[in-house]
């Protein structure tokens, strides 16, 4: 690599714009500028120095802020487009054809087009994820390209800078030294009082404050990279579990994806605010809106299967804990969390029937049929028996004489039964539903009559495990530290030195918040009687000053 030797004797790497030690401009371009470009201290960045190999080109592409900002803007616009219509996961339809039909039915031609272009699953699309990936690469490359040279340059900076560096600073002043040697002592004291680190050597004073804020952007980028890494990890098996389960009151079920955990639902509770009991201040709202839910809750018992239990054996479950799962209060165990997400009220649980003699009305006994796991045969004593020949949990009607069911959920249960009594030893067949009895083979002597139903609620629960959460939290924390560091502190430097002809030159630089550094310099100026400075960026103030000078 070619080194650039500065007139001050400092050796700079190829591509350096301002000498890392004394600040002399090293390129013709820098020499011709009225003010120096102080970003990254004029250090040699890889992306600005090499552009030959493919690696250089890729590196330069991703290190460019223009590319980074373009990626941000493209992602921003894409994200906005994804909110025009609901995304697929918020649409009440499953299966490709049904979803496609939903978009077309509800949102018309626009909806159809939106779906066909894949905008309905925009955030999961390969191109959107590629954009996020590219932004991630850009974060890494752009940070490395800048932070390393910047670090080296700030470490090597000399107290006494070259005059060409001083006069090209935005805040600069030069004038007579009225206090002699005392100028430096007083400046030093005042700068220290303002919390600056001060170096005094070589007839020059450098006050520097909060250099660490320069690392803020790189630290927050690191946090974002860690966050994105955590998000990527979720795609690996074992890091992330997302399951749902429906559990009925009284039921005990294995919790999917967990090592031998079972959940029993004792009760599902739905509470609403009612006008009598709720606080008076809510009356108007309740009146206007109607029913407002106050609580969704499933009371559960968590069990664990003992280590030595056989697969499928569930009779020796050990109770782990009782809990009430509410919205905002998930059940947590061993890295898993179970959330109250949904519910169905009053699902049919069992049906009660009565067997009687049609002619006399004499009752031969009652039976109760469990609608989830019905027994096939019911002995009522005295030789009376009812057998289930067929069970149709969600009965919709007959097709070619065959009863049909549209789902295994007992929404409208119906049964084909055989009734046997001492009088009818061959048995009579009947079809019974909630308000319907059909006798397919002619008149029966006995009838099975629907009496009553028992219902229960069903809780919809979501089971999650997310082993990446701590990585995401770490990334978030580092981001916040970095962004606070870079935003709430600013790197300030004030240079004061004696020129060859005995004048005093002052210059100041900050990466942001110029008002504050100027205030600091004002205080030092007052104490050490420094020459007045000008802000070479504030054209209006400069003009005003000119006007003032003319008129005076």
């Amino acid at each position, binding site marked *: 690599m070619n080194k650039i030797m500065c007139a001050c004797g400092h050796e700079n790497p190829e591509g350096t714009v301002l000498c890392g030690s004394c600040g002399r401009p090293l390129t013709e371009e820098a020499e011709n500028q009225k003010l120096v470009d102080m970003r990254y201290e004029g250090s040699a960045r890889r992306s600005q120095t090499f552009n030959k190999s493919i690696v250089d080109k890729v590196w330069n592409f991703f290190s460019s802020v223009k590319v980074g900002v373009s990626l941000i803007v493209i992602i921003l616009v894409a994200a906005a487009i994804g909110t025009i219509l609901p995304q697929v996961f918020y649409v009440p339809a499953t299966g490709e054809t049904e979803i496609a039909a939903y978009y077309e039915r*509800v949102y018309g031609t626009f909806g159809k087009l939106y779906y066909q272009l894949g905008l309905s699953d925009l955030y999961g699309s390969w191109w959107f994820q590629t954009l996020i990936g590219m932004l991630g690469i850009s974060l890494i490359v752009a940070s490395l390209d800048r932070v390393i040279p910047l670090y080296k340059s700030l470490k090597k900076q000399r107290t006494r800078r070259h005059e060409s560096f001083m006069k090209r600073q935005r805040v600069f002043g030069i004038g007579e030294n009225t206090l002699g040697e005392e100028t430096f002592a007083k400046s030093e004291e005042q700068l220290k009082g303002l919390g600056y680190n001060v170096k005094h050597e070589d007839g020059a004073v450098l006050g520097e404050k909060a250099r660490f804020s320069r690392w803020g952007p790189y630290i927050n980028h690191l946090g974002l990279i860690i966050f994105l890494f955590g998000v990527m990890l979720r795609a690996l098996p074992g890091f992330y579990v997302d399951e749902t389960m429906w559990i009925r009151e009284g039921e005990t079920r294995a919790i999917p994806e967990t090592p031998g955990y079972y959940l029993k639902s004792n009760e599902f509770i739905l509470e609403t605010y009612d006008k009598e009991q709720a606080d008076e201040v809510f009356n108007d709202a309740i009146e*206007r809106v109607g029913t407002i839910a106050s609580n969704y809750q499933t009371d559960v018992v968590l069990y664990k299967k003992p280590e030595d239990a056989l697969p499928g054996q569930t009779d020796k479950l050990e109770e782990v804990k009782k809990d009430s799962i509410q919205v*905002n209060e998930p059940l947590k165990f061993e890295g898993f969390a179970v*959330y109250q997400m949904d519910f169905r009220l009053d699902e049919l649980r069992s049906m009660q029937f009565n067997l009687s003699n049609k002619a006399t009305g004499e009752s031969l006994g009652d039976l109760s049929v469990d609608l989830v796991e019905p027994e096939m045969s019911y002995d009522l004593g005295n030789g009376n028996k009812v057998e289930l020949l067929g069970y149709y949990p969600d009965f919709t009607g007959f097709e070619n004489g065959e009863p049909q069911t549209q789902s295994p959920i007992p929404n409208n249960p119906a049964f084909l039964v055989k009734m046997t009594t001492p009088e009818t030893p061959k048995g009579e067949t009947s079809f019974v539903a909630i308000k319907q009895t059909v006798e397919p083979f002619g008149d029966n002597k006995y009838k099975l009559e629907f009496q009553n139903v028992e219902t229960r609620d069903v809780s919809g629960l*979501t089971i999650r495990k997310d082993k990446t959460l701590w990585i995401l939290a770490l990334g978030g924390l580092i981001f916040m530290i970095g962004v606070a560091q870079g935003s709430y502190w600013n790197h300030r430097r004030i240079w004061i030195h004696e020129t060859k002809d005995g004048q005093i030159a002052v210059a100041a630089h900050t990466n942001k918040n110029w008002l504050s550094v100027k205030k600091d310099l004002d205080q030092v100026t007052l104490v050490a009687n420094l020459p007045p400075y000008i802000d070479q960026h504030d054209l209006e103030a400069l003009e005003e000053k000119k006007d003032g000078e003319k008129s005076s």
Partner: protein
Amino acid sequence: MTLVSISGNLLFIAFVCYLVATLFFGGAVKSSTKKVATSEKRWGRIGITITIIGFISNLGYFVTRWIAAGHAPVSNLFEFTTAFGMMIVGSFILIYFLYKTPLLGLFALPIAIIIIGFASMFPTDINPLIPALKSYWLYVHVITAALGESILAMSAVAGLIYLTKNIDLTKRSKQRFWLEAVMLTLVLVLGFVASTTTFKVMDYEASFNYIDKEGKADEITYNVPPIFGMNEYEALTPGTMTPLAETPPIVNAKKLTTVTWSLIFGLVLYGLIRLIIRKPIAALLQPLAKKANSQLMDEIGYRAVLIGFPVFTLGALIFAMIWAQEAWSRFWGWDPKEVWALITWLFYAAFLHLRLSKGWQGEKSAWLAVIGFIIIMFNLIAVNLIIAGLHSYA
């Protein structure tokens, strides 16, 4: 007097204080020639004192309503928007003490006033909390997010002053057009307030049966004369206006009607203003803005983003994700409100990078700050009212 009515009165006092303070800041700016700097100081001091009194009263509203409801008043659109308006005033006070510029108050307070006025057009009842909102993260997340947004809004205020000062209003240009468009938008919000208030005073009500987009029958009540009717509507209230047109099922005709009335009132209002002042609103404000130091306004705009961005990130993204993980089982779900918070965040990230590396300062930076505020307001208003999602109760 109940706590609720005390709370309402405190809000009203705050509102009046902000109006009065605006006038004093106007006086401070008008008198700010170099010779009468003391007069500027005096008027400015009175202005900021009244602002602080208003702010304390506003905080009083917040606290008393909190006590009355048993939860922080940030749980519906009225409450959140009012809190946002209050925080804008708070952020203004913060910036005022950093930079001592009365001019900022002259622009910031009217914006806060318009926002609070807008808020009070929505139902002001105290809602009990639905299960999803029953969490202390409600306070932490919503208050931090609103605070961040209000500080970011200060950058738009500084940007607006910068633009009003520096855009040449004597010549036809894109800049002049868009600056006046921003002013018009503010007037249109006033149009919404005016139309809603007018029909509220008239106690207007008209009910309809209609068929919703899922094909189900439903009923709806308009509080403004129905310009547009819902899909297959059927009027239930005799003696009310017959809608001029019927909308397809995915369009909510009631909302469309409200927007149309706001436009009508707003445009009439704007027309009247133009008739009276005989020049664009921006031109009316320009002489006041001329007193600003552009460099300082640019600095304030940048500083506000620097202060607000981390707060916004913490409230609207990090706290939001923690809560979403607790309540909805996932920290991120691409819900429209979430997405728009991300968009806001990306936008200000782009703003910071452009400023840092591309040297977008001055006018470009000022435009970006104004656009950022528009995105924030879009997320507050449009995402709640137009795009349905998990946050639509807020």
